[in-house]
């Protein structure tokens, strides 16, 4: 068994026993079940669930990611005194937080969705929602881990991580709207599309809304998006979400390799 896997397995045990992840799992289970039961038919429940995924997932990922890395600091010091390469330790550390989070999401949301059941279209939408949720989790966890590696001060790291969440989940939309209304006289479709690609939360939202066939509500821009995401855009969007995980992961790794403990 290689070093990364050893680190991973002991961190998984460590995380699984802290009650955070179990609480998160139960919250998702209860929330999804309630939405499905009282939130109308399958597709409408999916739409409500979409908002939960877009707001809650990044928030939990950044908070848990930062706290986890700071709590593991002494563990990291213990292992760095052993013949362990920093690169393996970092990948084990990241996997140790991202797997429980993504797993809790998949089980907590996926199981009630599948138990509900539906036609083929519903299942495809469920699949897209789960995939986007997992990618949001990996992305925001990678950002949180990078921030926590860079800043030893817990308050500062948490503050910065929350700021990232706030910008991506809430403020960025306002910015896009501002640009759109200020430059309403110009053809903005392409710049707006670009802006959407820069924020994983927006990207996931547009991606899912498009696939849910509610783009008619979004007017002309919606039509542009529809055209784009209908074709290879979907693949491109998922690729962009992967990049949103890879970039912070690599930055965090770089900082970790150079860090003074």
């Amino acid at each position, binding site marked *: 068994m290689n070093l990364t896997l050893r680190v991973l397995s002991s961190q998984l045990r*460590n995380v699984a026993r802290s009650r955070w992840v179990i609480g998160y799992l139960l919250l998702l289970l209860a929330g999804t079940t309630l939405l499905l039961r009282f939130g109308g038919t399958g597709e409408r429940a999916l739409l409500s669930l979409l908002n939960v995924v877009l707001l809650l997932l990044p928030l939990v990922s950044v908070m848990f990611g930062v706290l986890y890395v700071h709590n593991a600091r002494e563990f990291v010091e213990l292992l760095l*005194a052993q*013949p362990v390469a920093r690169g393996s330790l970092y990948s084990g550390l990241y996997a140790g937080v991202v797997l429980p989070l993504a797993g809790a999401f998949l089980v907590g949301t996926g199981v009630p969705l599948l138990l509900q059941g539906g036609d083929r279209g519903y299942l495809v939408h469920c699949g897209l929602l789960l995939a986007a949720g997992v990618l949001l989790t990996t992305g925001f966890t990678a950002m949180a881990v990078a921030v926590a590696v860079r800043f030893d001060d817990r308050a500062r790291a948490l503050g910065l991580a929350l700021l990232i969440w706030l910008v991506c989940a809430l403020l960025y939309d306002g910015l896009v709207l501002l640009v759109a209304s200020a430059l309403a006289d110009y053809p903005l479709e392409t710049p707006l599309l670009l802006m959407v690609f820069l924020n994983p939360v927006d990207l996931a939202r547009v991606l899912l809304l498009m696939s849910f066939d509610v783009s008619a509500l979004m007017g002309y821009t919606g039509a542009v998006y529809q055209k784009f995401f209908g074709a290879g855009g979907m693949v491109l969007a998922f690729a962009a979400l992967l990049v949103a995980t890879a970039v912070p992961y690599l930055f965090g790794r770089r900082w970790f390799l150079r860090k003074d403990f």
Partner: protein
Amino acid sequence: MEVSGLRKRFGRREVLRGLDLKFAPGRITAVVGPNAAGKTTLIKSILGLVRRHPGDGVIRLDDLELNGDCAYREGIGYMPQTAPFPEQLTGREVLELVVGLRGHPADLDRELIERFALPAVLDQPVRTWSGGTRQKLNAALAFLFRPTLLILDEPTAGLDPLASAILKEKVLRSPAEGATVVLTSHLMSEVEELAQDLVFLLDGAVAYLGPVEGLLHQTGETRLERAMARALEAAAR
């Protein structure tokens, strides 16, 4: 082990300003000095916990120049100041993890585990342990793999007198078992008891390097504590 021209700065603060020292093989060396003199930074540089950049000096271990590769730590046993264990794991899991990371060597030195009576608590999560118990496992881990270089950062801090005596006895025996020992301490009585050689750090530079008696002679004192105070006064002037 040899350290030459070792420098380290954290931001604008220069912590180590060009250290040149040698730790004689098979001897016990104490690194002493006032707070913030750079003792822990020196130790962490040797372990690679603190990164060196080009031009920050050279550390050589048995003719092997440390370059960021991690394999040399096979031969090092390190006991940090505070016991660093994941809270939710049991003592046994911590042990298994570290033993596994070292590739399950057959010949383990379990003496301290037994003498500290750790087997009785190994199956409880570390979070329920007292500070002293953690420190015992911390010490036991440093000796577990029969290291050729033992690095102990304030080894007896937090240990009860009985455990402290067991540990000191073990340290005194380790040169005979083939280890070079480097330790830091604020307790001069402990240094007198354990160490043969002394590295006295002051503001990130070596103020004295040599046998313990040497510093006593130099300052004309009989107790190390007084000798240290003398040296500090001399440096302040």
